[in-house]
């Protein structure tokens, strides 16, 4: 038991943003704060008609998927980001993590905005009950929470956090991208894309801090953490595969979703500085889903991917012209 009288909490250092130990802290802080948003920004009510055109099964699936995503955001808001704060190396890192924690609360909150705009209270309550009882959703949450509770290993917590943010969300994110590719629930998809954008920065930042921690360790411990990371990813993947089948078999989309999972698992590993695991063939995501993910960003003008006969020279885009001298 802690003797509070003998070990009072140390007074923290006041955070001085003009003295940085790691410039990435400020870069990421700036990105996150500029990207700040609230669900009220998205005109979700424009999806009411589209929602009414979905079948009962499609509506139930969508609500269930969103309650599953809400659970992950809730975990990240209340446990994940706060527990990473305890391990922060710099005071600025703690501040960035507090932003991440809050945005996770915004994400969790925004699914309820979708619900209150489009759905009946009873069907939403049923879906929250479903998520609380769903064995796969509970199992993946348990695996992540066990790592968050393993306070002896700051780097394992970061691995779990990156897998949650860069991998586990995508079985859910697939569905609004699928609807969007069919011109359904397009405003909801806009909201999900804001979440997807945030998660990329979170995964990048926590993965970067993981790499900084990893490089200070002796080779044997580095190898141990790498083995741990791949083992955890395999365990999570097993659960995700079952969860995906349960959700998407009815729509015949399971194989398509799994390709999306492989693709995102590789990106999660890359955020940690590791090589990709799944071969390119297993990661061939339906082009309609990729187009829904990055609209107006199609492949065909790449010289190396195309026939090699033509390429496009970029069109004018927003940039800081004052930085360029010509």
């Amino acid at each position, binding site marked *: 038991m802690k003797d509070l009288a003998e070990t009072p909490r140390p007074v923290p250092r006041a955070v001085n943003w003009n003295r940085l130990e790691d410039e990435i802290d400020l870069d990421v802080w700036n990105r996150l704060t500029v990207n700040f948003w609230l669900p009220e920004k998205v005109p979700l009510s424009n999806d009411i008609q589209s929602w009414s055109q979905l079948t009962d099964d499609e509506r139930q699936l969508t609500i269930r998927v969103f309650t599953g995503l809400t659970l992950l955001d809730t975990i990240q808001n209340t446990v994940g980001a706060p527990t990473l704060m305890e391990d922060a190396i710099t005071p600025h890192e703690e501040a960035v993590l507090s932003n991440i924690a809050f945005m996770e609360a915004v994400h969790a909150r925004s699914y309820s905005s979708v619900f209150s705009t489009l759905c009946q209270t009873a069907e939403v309550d049923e879906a929250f009950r479903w998520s609380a009882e769903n064995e796969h959703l509970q199992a993946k949450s348990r695996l992540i929470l066990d790592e968050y509770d393993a306070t002896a290993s700051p780097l394992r917590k970061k691995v779990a956090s990156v897998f949650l943010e860069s991998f586990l969300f995508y079985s859910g994110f697939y569905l609004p991208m699928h609807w969007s590719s069919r011109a359904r629930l397009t405003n909801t998809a806009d909201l999900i894309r804001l979440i997807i954008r945030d998660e990329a920065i979170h995964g990048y930042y926590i993965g970067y801090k993981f790499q900084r921690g990893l490089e200070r360790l002796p080779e044997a411990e580095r190898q141990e953490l790498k083995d741990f990371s791949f083992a955890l990813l395999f365990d999570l993947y097993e659960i995700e595969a079952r969860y995906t089948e349960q959700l998407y078999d009815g729509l015949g989309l399971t194989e398509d979703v799994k390709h999306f999972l492989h693709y995102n698992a590789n990106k999660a590993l890359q955020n940690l500085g590791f090589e990709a695991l799944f071969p*390119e063939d297993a990661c061939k995501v339906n082009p309609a889903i990729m187009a829904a993910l*990055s*609209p107006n960003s199609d492949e065909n003008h790449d*010289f190396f991917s195309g026939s090699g006969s033509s390429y496009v*020279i970029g069109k004018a885009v927003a940039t*800081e012209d004052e930085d*360029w001298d010509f």
Partner: protein
Amino acid sequence: MGGLVYYSSASGNTLRLIDRLGLPATRLPREADAPLPQVTSPFVLICPTYADGYGRGAVPKQVIRFLNDPAPRALLRGVIASGNRNFGDKFALAGRIIADKCGVPLLYRFELAGTEEETARIRDGLARFWAQQEDKTCLTQA
């Protein structure tokens, strides 16, 4: 075959791609006050993207500093850009900005550190591209 110049931030994604490519490449320094490398022959630039939600800050400052000098800029022949598709239409935006600013083609885009297959595609693509460039030079001189 021409050269490669690249920028890689502390996350090391671009550096990992360069290591896998196995081609000679010149790294631009991360430090704002570090001297920039002298480049004397034509090159392709590999550059990551750091745009915010509005596309600002897409091109790393060090890359802008390097290209602001007319001498290396005159030797730039093409750009390969990386990013993350999670950023939607801002994916690999640095490549489009540099291609536009400098009037060179955007050769390829990849995510994060790229995959094995993409590494091979870039290696083959560069070989084809430089061969084409040489053909053009021959035609101009003939």
